[in-house]
């Protein structure tokens, strides 16, 4: 091989590598973000946001029409009437009109990190957590109202209660902000990182949240005091998801698959049982039926309040997301399986599956 030819081959090879690395998108692995409204289902996954027809599981459209390798969607869309708000890994938060063909109404581009958590909305204000350690508050006309700067990436959905924005922080705390200007009202320290979004109960005016340190706490919203802390005598595993509140029982799970019911007032245990496998996902309540448990291995079970399994199904793939319950269906997102989303009716019958087109 001549010197010239060898050099050319090498340059072509390296140029190919160079182009390949240029074309690479964000290097992160995550799960599909599913959100459901009235007759609307949206799925954020990889380079698209899909609208799914609830009747048959077919994508009615996808945004963008042509993928951009740097634009990756994992955050569930916030549904607001005919619009959705969805953030991506290209550091943009988009307002998309979904009444017909999806049309981008505006793009908020001031963040420097990824949008992983679902945004929250209250009145005119959209609150969006970002990996650049900021919480952004934007109004409906895409004007930045305030920014709250923290110490760690914000990745979970904020909670808005009256004049407060409450956010979980990976910096081992729950942060209470003033909704008007984003100033910190208080920070409540926990023992481990808080990944699960906070859950609010009006009855007790308290916030309930678990941490990765194997603790589950009730925080009084007005005083910020930890009213009680539950660690199951030191045996509670890490808590990755929100609880549900049903019939005066606060039900949540840890990652080891332990499902526990507590009294929200006292933190005393009503009951607990083992679901039988690893369970990073949380529980979902099915009205009048019971609660759905999704194990990482793809086992989906509906339990009645007597803790007896009503039905159980297995989906292909691994499940890390809390199932989403609509008026008529349970939606389960899975990765590394045959399909991305599985829909079951409340009797456990498969309704449809969704797999994005390549």
């Amino acid at each position, binding site marked *: 091989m001549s010197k010239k030819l060898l050099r050319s081959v090498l340059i072509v090879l390296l140029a190919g590598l160079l182009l390949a690395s240029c074309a690479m998108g964000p290097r992160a692995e995550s799960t599909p973000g599913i959100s459901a409204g009235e007759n609307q289902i949206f799925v954020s996954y990889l380079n698209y946001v899909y609208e799914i027809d609830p009747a048959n599981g077919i994508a009615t459209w996808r945004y963008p029409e042509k993928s951009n390798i740097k634009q990756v969607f994992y955050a569930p869309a916030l549904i607001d009437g005919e619009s959705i708000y969805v953030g991506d890994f290209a550091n943009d938060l988009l307002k998309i009109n979904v009444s017909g063909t999806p049309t981008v109404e505006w793009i908020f581009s001031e963040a420097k990190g990824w949008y992983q958590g679902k945004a929250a909305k209250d009145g005119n204000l959209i609150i969006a957590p970002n990996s650049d350690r900021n919480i952004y508050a934007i109004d409906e006309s895409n004007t930045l109202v305030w920014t709250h700067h923290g110490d760690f*990436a914000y990745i979970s959905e904020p909670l808005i209660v009256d004049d407060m924005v409450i956010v979980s922080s990976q*910096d081992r705390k729950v942060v209470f902000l003033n909704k008007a200007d984003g100033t910190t009202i208080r920070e409540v320290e926990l023992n481990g990182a808080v990944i699960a979004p906070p859950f609010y109960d009006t009855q007790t005016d308290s916030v309930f949240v678990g941490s990765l340190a194997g603790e589950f706490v009730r925080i009084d919203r007005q005083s910020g005091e930890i009213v009680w802390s539950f660690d199951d005598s030191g045996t509670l595993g890490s808590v990755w998801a929100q609880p549900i509140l049903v019939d005066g029982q606060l039900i949540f799970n840890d990652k080891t698959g332990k499902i526990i019911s507590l009294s929200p007032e006292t933190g005393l245990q009503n009951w607990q049982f083992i679901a039988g496998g690893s369970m990073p996902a949380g529980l979902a309540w099915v009205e009048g039926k019971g609660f759905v448990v999704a194990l990482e291995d793809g086992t989906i079970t509906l339990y009645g309040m007597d803790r007896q399994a009503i039905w159980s199904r297995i989906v292909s793939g691994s499940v890390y997301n809390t199932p989403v319950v609509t008026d008529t269906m349970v939606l389960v997102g899975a990765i590394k399986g045959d399909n991305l989303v599985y829909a079951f009716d409340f009797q456990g019958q498969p309704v449809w599956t969704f797999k994005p087109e390549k």
Partner: protein
Amino acid sequence: MWDTLIVQPFTNVLLMITMVVKNFGVAIILFTILIKLITYPLTARQLKSSQAMQDMQKSPRYVKMQEKYKDNKEKLAEEQMKLYKELGVSPFGSCLPMLIQFPVIIGLYQSIMRAMASTPLELVKLERMVYPFLDSTKILPIQNRFLWMDLGQPERLMIAGIGIPVLTILVILSTVVQTRVMQPPTEGGNDQAAAMTNSMSMTMPILMGVMAYQFSAGLALYFVVSNLTTVAQYAAMGKTDWSRIFPWIKTKPKVSKPSIVIPDLPDEDEDEPEVIEKVSKPSARAAAKRQRPKMKK
């Protein structure tokens, strides 16, 4: 298997260092240096083998052999193999240590990527990797802030509203230095090898720069530290010709004696393969060893 044997131990060592120094950036620097030190014997062996090969290829006997059998590739290969055997030089001597280092380098890269878990799914997987004797709740998630950087995001230093990719520039510069340091001298050497190394020295810094610009700062930091450590290792072995990097420096490294002694070919019959005189007794390898220059410590 790969995760259990390579990535998991590496990740746990990285997490342990992070626990001790309480800074992930410093932990990446220390961990990269540690791994480079552990693999130093392999690097040294690779360098020695490649030096021996270069010395052999520059020898008059080798050049004559190339000329003599230029139209008979099979015969040339046969004679080369004979010479390799006789001198105790393995054509794969420099490849083998490099091949052994590859899994280590890939494991190092993967462990840094794993430790920088930025999504809940990646955190779940990282938590699962942490050995029971380490308290994962105290370590995870890792604070990615280091100096002005967010190690989980591509790095830009904001100066007057302009994002300057400082780490990318450092990656490019350190890769230029590293490739020049490692580049064997081309004079009298093999043209193809020279062309290859020249192409590499041109394109590698650009490729690494583009990767550093696009990928997370933690990875770019690893590139910089790895490059600089490699340069330091070469310098420690006395193999660095600084005038190639800094042309105003006139001093070159001491001209080392050839690592192997190759007697010239005697004039012989065209048809008969030459009888090659043994380099020395008891073995050519031992002779080569005696002749090798002493390494600078």
